[in-house]
């Protein structure tokens, strides 16, 4: 068939290469599939937001929920409900659902970017040690009570920690001004160990009761969502995803190897640096508002690639939309599974994600190098 290459040349350590072939019947079918997927995901997103707002530990009828939203949006009087219900829907659920969408999109986008940057299918937003760095910031606030940026100290310190660790990894991974993906991963892993040790040290020095709170944060939670916390992530997401979409072709090139990329007109060193900065900032913002939510950044790109292939012009928008839908529903779980209490988000993403990943490994033999593994 046109456009098909041998398996070993088509796969880079687990990520199928985007085809650069000319349009053909199969490519057109691919484009159609993608179109349907994107439209489907967009509709799923709207439906998810609408439905997720009606679900929570306190029962409020869906009609009442939508009435509350409408009346708050358009200042119309649409019926009777209590102040408590009004506050729950408008001040807790809606910001939370929207924040879940923003964070899910952001993490998925960074996941795509990181997998391209280091050409490794196991890459996720945290391989630069960003989550370990953010954890150090978090324990400094929770255990040692360092409140510099009250009342946003936890978010601010988490952001500082995340970006700070990225800078360290960036500097450590350089060798005569060049950064190789392998050095990056190694430096990231090593720094993550150091930062985790520091986090644990501070944790053990402090009150035993802080453990639960720190663990909760490290596993990620959207329980603190407020309207005022949406602006920064929304702007960061818009800018981040916008820039990535514009660079989608360059990301395709990067995936094919440094020499090929240069031949295609992309400076791999410079581009990698730009992607890393973008990834660090976007991850920092997301981690600051929601803690370290795992698996989304790792999983979404792979799921999407199964359907639309590896072209970043398709993978990016699809991952962004899928990430949003996924995290919205995971967060519904986080607030209802052990109601009336809260579960951290990563518990659910991992319980849903890991089995799926294993299934992928088992049944999709063409993925991840198939017969080579």
């Amino acid at each position, binding site marked *: 068939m046109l456009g098909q290459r041998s398996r070993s040349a088509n796969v880079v350590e687990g990520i199928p290469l985007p085809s650069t072939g000319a349009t053909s019947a199969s490519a057109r079918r691919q484009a159609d599939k993608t179109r349907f997927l994107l439209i489907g995901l967009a509709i799923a997103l709207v439906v998810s937001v609408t439905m997720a707002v009606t679900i929570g*530990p306190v029962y409020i009828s869906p009609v009442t929920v939508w009435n509350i939203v409408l009346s708050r949006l358009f200042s119309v009087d649409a019926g009777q409900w209590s102040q408590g219900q009004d506050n729950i829907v408008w001040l807790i659920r809606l910001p939370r659902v929207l924040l879940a*969408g923003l964070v899910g999109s952001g993490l998925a986008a960074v996941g795509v970017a990181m997998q391209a940057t280091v050409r490794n299918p196991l890459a996720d937003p945290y391989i630069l040690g960003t989550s370990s760095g953010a954890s150090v910031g978090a324990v400094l606030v929770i255990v040692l009570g360092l409140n510099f940026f009250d009342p946003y100290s936890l978010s601010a310190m988490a952001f500082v920690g995340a970006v700070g660790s990225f800078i360290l990894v960036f500097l450590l991974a350089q060798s005569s001004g060049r950064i190789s993906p392998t050095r990056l991963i190694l430096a990231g892993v090593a720094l993550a160990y150091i930062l985790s040790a520091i986090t644990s040290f501070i944790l053990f020095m402090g009150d035993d009761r802080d453990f639960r709170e720190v663990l909760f944060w490290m596993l990620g939670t959207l329980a603190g969502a407020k309207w005022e916390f949406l602006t920064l992530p929304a702007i960061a997401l818009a800018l981040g995803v916008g820039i990535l979409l514009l660079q989608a072709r360059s990301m395709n090139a990067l995936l094919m190897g440094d020499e090929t990329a240069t031949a295609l007109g992309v400076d791999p060193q410079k581009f990698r640096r730009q992607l890393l900065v973008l990834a660090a900032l976007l991850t920092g913002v997301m981690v600051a508002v929601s803690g370290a939510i795992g698996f989304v950044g790792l999983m979404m790109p792979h799921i999407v690639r199964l359907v639309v292939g590896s072209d970043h012009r398709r993978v990016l928008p699809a991952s962004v939309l899928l990430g949003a839908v996924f995290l919205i529903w995971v967060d519904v779980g986080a607030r209802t599974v052990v109601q009336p209490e809260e579960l951290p988000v990563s518990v659910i993403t991992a319980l849903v994600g890991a089995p799926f990943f294993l299934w992928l490994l088992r049944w999709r033999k063409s993925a991840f190098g198939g017969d080579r593994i």
Partner: protein
Amino acid sequence: MLRETPFVILAILAVVLLLAACGGDDADSVQGGEAAGISVENCSTTTGEDSQEAFPVSSHTYTEAPSRAVTMNQHTTELMLTLGLQDRMAGTAYIDDFILPELKEAYDSVPVLADEYPSKEVILGSETDFIYAGFASAFRETAAGPQADLADLGIPSYLTLAICKEEADSIQDIYDDIANISRIFEVTERGEALIASMKKDIESVTSKVDPSGTPIRAFLYDSGDDAPYTSVCCSMFTNLIELASAKNIFDDVDGRWATVNWEEVIERDPEVIVLIEAVWSTAQEKMDFLTTNEALADITAVKEQRFVTINFSSIVPGIRNPEAIRTLAEGIYPESFR
């Protein structure tokens, strides 16, 4: 479609931003206290973490008594129920072990919101107009949320005074809490009666114990095998054990609770060991651990088998403290109580 996706995504984000802009504006705030009312001084926590430093003082004026109070933690629940306020309560949460039998009926008449801390949504769903919490952790994001946010929604909150201050916890904090709560709910006579009866109970114990001579050395063992978790200088336990004419061997360590080490315990050689009876660590388990451990065999308390068992909920600042002092005194000086 592929070319238009960026614009679609940006459009969605623009909507979100718009919502964020208009959503953030309409926060209802607590009415300023110009109307005549009961002004109560308390403190507020911004981080939701217990700490030894003082929390910023805050005061709130209650124009009318709350009618749908939510109590978080056992000691606050028992305080309100002892004052007979169950019909002004809309919910309780986070019991440590068990409610006092005499309060059980009243307790059962109020909905239990959660076994531990309920989420914000559940708290708002109870339509509460007052939150009384025993620990700063009740105001974490995954629990009730920051006190400032609750205030914005018109829900004042009150934190146990013992947590607010930098100084060591003491019985006086409970009396002050009772005074404040009874003022807020306009049941001041009941409050005064409760304080009087607590003082009488304590007096009847302290009068039987002779404070002269070196105080007996006591060690509180909460949990932990490799390293024991104990109460230190500024916890309620230290005050209670002093009233029982004994001394906490770790009263020189800063904070309220701390993980120490067995070497220090051996060195300080307590004459009596107080074992916490709790769901997470029973007194029997701890006693077995102490008596079967070679390294600890020479500690006076272990040699003489002088152990006193007490419930965790009794040593938390609250209305059980007089009973705790009695339990401790009777355990340490059984001869005085024959």
